[in-house]
């Protein structure tokens, strides 16, 4: 059995507002980059699945040399095996391209039972790599996974959170699961983990080392969508009007009047 987390290096959420539209896609956003917060849940779940069911754990990312920092964080948390997929040919891939690259790397691994991803990245926000990966591998896909109930030979049973309630879903393995925040509480790496991660030699594979990968199916040339006209959203106009009546009841009354006048009630 093997559990694999797919992760991404993304801006620190405290600094997302500092990213300049003109720097997107340049390879240097000028902000601190960390393991995508949603992916921490996937990494943590790999560790917990290993504790519960045995087997191996691995973490994979696609990106430039700097993306290794996302892998180091996962290793510091306790993942044993890390793999960077890096090639100039991969640059400019859309979600389907990234999914195809990850799929080929996962196909090289033995006895993969579950592949876990976060719900989405905090930069691209599309949540498409998980389903794209499942479609590329030709395996089941469950999103919004709130709990892994059971993993047996050949199947996994999980809880899927929908808007209207929670389904218990059994899928054939291998399968791809996009996990929800509810699934666990990611651990903080300890000192030993951080030291191990900082010293680890992390292997990197290029396109040529993924024999099943058609180079024409990845990179900017294969991307089916393009981000154009990147811009800052319009700033909120006007300052906050502080409401202060003589009593709390009067304050509430003034506020209620304002909101009724705004036609939002």
């Amino acid at each position, binding site marked *: 059995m093997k559990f694999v987390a797919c992760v991404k290096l993304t801006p620190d959420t405290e600094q997302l507002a500092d990213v300049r539209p003109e720097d997107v896609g340049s390879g240097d956003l000028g902000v601190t980059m960390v393991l995508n917060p949603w992916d921490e849940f996937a990494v943590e779940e790999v560790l917990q699945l290993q504790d519960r069911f045995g087997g191996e754990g691995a973490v994979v990312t696609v990106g430039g040399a700097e993306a290794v920092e996302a892998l180091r964080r996962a290793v510091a948390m306790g993942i044993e095996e890390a793999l960077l997929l890096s090639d100039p040919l991969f640059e400019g891939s859309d979600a389907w391209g990234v999914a195809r690259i990850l799929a080929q790397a996962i196909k090289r691994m033995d006895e993969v039972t579950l592949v876990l991803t976060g719900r989405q990245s905090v930069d691209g926000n599309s949540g498409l790599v998980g389903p794209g990966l499942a479609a590329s591998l030709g395996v089941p896909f469950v999103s919004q996974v709130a709990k892994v109930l059971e993993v047996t030979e050949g199947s996994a049973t999980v809880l899927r959170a929908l808007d209207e309630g929670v389904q218990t879903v*059994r899928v054939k393995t291998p399968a791809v699961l996009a996990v929800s925040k509810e699934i666990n509480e990611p651990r903080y790496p300890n000192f030993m983990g951080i030291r191990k991660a900082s010293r680890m030699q992390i292997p990197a594979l290029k396109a040529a080392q993924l024999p099943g990968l058609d180079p024409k199916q990845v990179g900017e040339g294969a991307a089916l969508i393009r981000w154009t006209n990147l811009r800052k959203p319009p700033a909120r106009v006007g300052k906050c009007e502080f409401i202060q009546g003589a009593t709390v009841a009067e304050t509430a009354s003034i506020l209620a009047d304002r909101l009724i006048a705004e036609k939002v009630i």
Partner: protein
Amino acid sequence: MSVLVYIAQNQGQAKPVSWEIMGKARALADRLHVPLIGLVIGHGVGEVAAEAIAYGADRVLVADGPAFAAFRAYAYADALKAAIAAAQPTIILAPASAGARDAAALAACQLGIGLAAECQDLDLDADGNLVAERPIFSGNILTTVTFKAKPQMATVRSRSFPLPTKAMGRSGEIAALAVNLSELAEQEEVLGFEAAEAGEVGVENASIIVSGGRGVKGPEGFAPLRELARVLGAAVGASRAAVDAGWIPYPHQVGQTGKTVRPDLYIACGISGAIQHLAGMSNARVIVAINKDRDAPIFGVARYGVVGDLFEVVPALTEAFKAKLGRQ
């Protein structure tokens, strides 16, 4: 040539976002002079199909059967693929809601269709190509997504477009859609379902949200917020701090690692306004902040602020609305 809309439903009830998209799709189809085709997937969903005609569809394809009684990712994706084959659309639109978004993504990837996810506006360029506006970097940057090939697919967030008016007299065609389920569809089985708490308004579809943070101090601290929400017909939201503390379940969470919402009115009670929370709600039309700390960042995005104790202000606000709106 057509515009195809995936209509998300639950237990024979269409999700409002489906009709919001239908309204916009009607305008796009008219500009392109092509028919608007709806797709309904489920079991016993005939009424939803009839409603789709009233909301603007010219034709509705219905994949109805026990195989579609519960949402299954590939089964629903197979139905969408069958509809794409039948409708030959240039534009395919689906809600970005849970379930629909998975089926759309699986079908798009399998068919090699470009997909713009989580869009908040749609338009056509001078040549009739779809352009889709969406937030990226957690709402800190906007982009206009363009497509290199057709068909062009987009998933659309709730409350991106107004609900169109329903024209009961409209006529259209309803046709059964035959779907050959793939082997992958058979590899997913739904063993059980536990419905969410009845009577609660979901934050993603709410026009008003009353939201609580660390300042509510505990699970019982949400009681006055729920009372205000009840009087306003609002949903109850929460910050990550309140959810992580276990005071309210995760489906209520708004922000970076919760839901992104766009209500007309967002009343933030005891929420300081961490940047991760603002990412999920700063697109609300009007924001009200109630907080003890005048320097809390939430006041930076709020139109109206009250510096005070939420346990005094919120009940007073509830009473004020009861009196002014004549509600109980």
